[in-house]
């Protein structure tokens, strides 16, 4: 039985069969959600915006990792570094070439994509854990180059970058307006990723993930598919870095350590492999956890006194680890799978199965 769609919906042609949002209710809900995301900053104020904007940036990055790891099944332990490439691309283009942010934004993605393809080439020969180690090498190489190419990147001192100025009368130096920019880019990238997943390349990615030998024998060029997955995923990471970096108007190589790359993977598990919703959920949970862990700092101060400063740094790590372990034990397929189950049981109500 097919319970992947709401009750009472039928397809009259093959165009309908591929629609993502079938019922008027779901279409309305999607529209309402998008509107709500644009209205929220008027409600939550400065503090809310300072959480929402990074969530947007990380959502884009998470979508990229979802493409590489969730869809194509190639574990990448270097994703944060590609985000860093996006940040530094914008900073360098702005500083040395006088690019505006708008012009630098696509380049941030393209440069990350090019580097991603280069480091994705080992995927032609390796898979599984071996490939994971190759991407780990990518992480170290990228961080090493950035921190030692002092004449260009300023080494570990970081670089300044600027947000876009005024466009069409909108002043993007204002945090709220910048959030709208970040949100819009996120919406576009989500749209692209969603379509990627449901068209030719998306199916090829899953085919390579599920059975690469069969995929090759069924006419899919596994090598280019894998490399393309790395390229596109890193494009997303680069754009994510540009959006996130410009928000702080500063970038430092210490922002994307190995631990960030690993948290990326961890929260992808929390969100759920192999779905767009899972990527978004993972990014949201990550940043919300981040905030929660800083919120409890005053509490620890009351308990631990002077030691609280050290404790709070450890707190976020504890938080992260706890939630990832919880998910690995109780719901290894992540939030997205849980959400599917909820939808399913709602559709089948009052029947238990």
């Amino acid at each position, binding site marked *: 039985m097919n319970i992947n769609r709401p009750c009472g919906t039928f397809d009259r042609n093959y165009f309908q069969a591929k629609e993502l949002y079938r019922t008027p209710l779901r279409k309305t809900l999607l529209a309402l959600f998008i509107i709500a995301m644009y209205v929220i900053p008027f409600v939550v104020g400065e503090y809310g915006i300072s959480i929402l904007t990074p969530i947007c940036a990380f959502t884009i990055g998470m979508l990229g990792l979802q493409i590489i790891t969730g869809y194509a099944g190639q574990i990448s332990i270097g994703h944060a570094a590609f985000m860093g490439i996006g940040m530094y691309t914008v900073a360098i283009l702005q500083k040395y070439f006088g690019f505006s942010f708008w012009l630098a934004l696509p380049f941030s993605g393209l440069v990350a994509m090019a580097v991603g393809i280069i480091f994705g080439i080992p995927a032609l020969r390796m898979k599984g854990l071996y490939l994971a180690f190759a991407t780990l090498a990518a992480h170290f190489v990228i961080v090493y180059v950035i921190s030692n190419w002092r004449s260009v990147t300023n080494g570990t001192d970081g670089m300044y970058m600027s947000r876009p100025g005024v466009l069409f009368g909108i002043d993007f130096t204002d945090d709220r307006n910048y959030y709208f920019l970040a949100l819009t880019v996120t919406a576009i990238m989500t749209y692209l990723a969603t*379509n990627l997943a449901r068209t030719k390349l998306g199916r090829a990615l*899953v*085919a390579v993930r*599920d059975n690469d030998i*069969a995929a*090759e024998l069924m*006419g*899919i060029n596994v090598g280019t598919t894998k490399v393309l997955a790395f390229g*596109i995923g890193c494009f997303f990471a680069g754009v994510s870095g540009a959006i996130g970096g410009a928000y702080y108007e500063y970038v430092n190589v210490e922002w994307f350590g190995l631990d960030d790359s690993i948290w990326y993977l961890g929260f992808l598990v929390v969100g759920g492999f192999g779905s767009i919703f899972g990527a978004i959920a993972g990014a949201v949970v990550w940043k919300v956890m981040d905030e929660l862990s800083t919120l409890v700092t005053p509490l620890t101060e009351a308990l631990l006194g002077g030691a609280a400063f050290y404790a709070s740094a450890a707190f976020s790590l504890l938080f992260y680890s706890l939630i990832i372990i919880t998910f690995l034990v109780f719901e290894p397929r992540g939030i997205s799978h849980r959400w599917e189950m909820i939808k399913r049981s709602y559709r089948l109500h009052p029947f238990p199965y």
Partner: protein
Amino acid sequence: MRDITKKREQRYSYGLALLRECIEKKRLWTNNEDEKKAVLRVENIDLSFGDLRALNNVSVDVRGHEILAIIGPNGAGKTSLLNVISGFYRAQRGDIYFNEEKITRFSSHKIAERGICRTFQNIALYSGLTVTDNIIAGRHPHINYNFLTGMIYFPWANREEAYQRAIAEDIIDFLELEHVRGSVVGMLAYGLRKRVELGRALALEPRILLLDEPMAGMNVDEKEDMARFIIDINEFLKIPIVLIEHDMGVVMDIADRIFVLDFGNPIAEGSPEEIKQNQKVISAYLGTG
């Protein structure tokens, strides 16, 4: 009863209409004389794994419109032969010609694009995709847009997707998979998965179809269904089919020619009647040789 007859008639009038249209243009033979000509020629193949000789000087032809059965005891090298043809194993010696083109050194996906499509002895589906998506994934080389078009989802990408979906539904109808079209294949019964695999091979627009034990592990009903599908595909699409099968009853019934392998050696080739009488085959099967 009447329903079944009606369904059968329907199959003959519409069966695989869209797919037939795609394949018609690329078919390897047109008139009845060509039909007897070899479209796939395997010449003097040697394949060893270390000391183990899996194939020893194997030559075989597949003709334009026949069902060729490959039989032989377990470990005879039947699967290895298919793997060599589809480029998964590299033969140490020998050549393979498809439609007079030498494909020995082609990479597997190129060979599949040429129209040499196959199923696997151990089911190799994309377990995370639904039945429909598995079949559309089989259409991969024949989908006409690049990934950027897909990501932006231009109207023509949408139209192309709908067309591919129509072909997939055509195949689903033909293989009677309607009731499971939305299910994830990992959860399906064994017999159904075998059928989905056949569907995915069909989606690739085969000009020759290689089936590796499509009926293994099935009950009698499922076997009959599968035999019917194989004969119908051979009739509708007018393509040759290479069939590895252990059930001698089925082989004798549906094969036009039989090729017998034993420990990597070709020991006989001929019509079912000839094979039935062949002394070498009998001894190989009874283990006295």
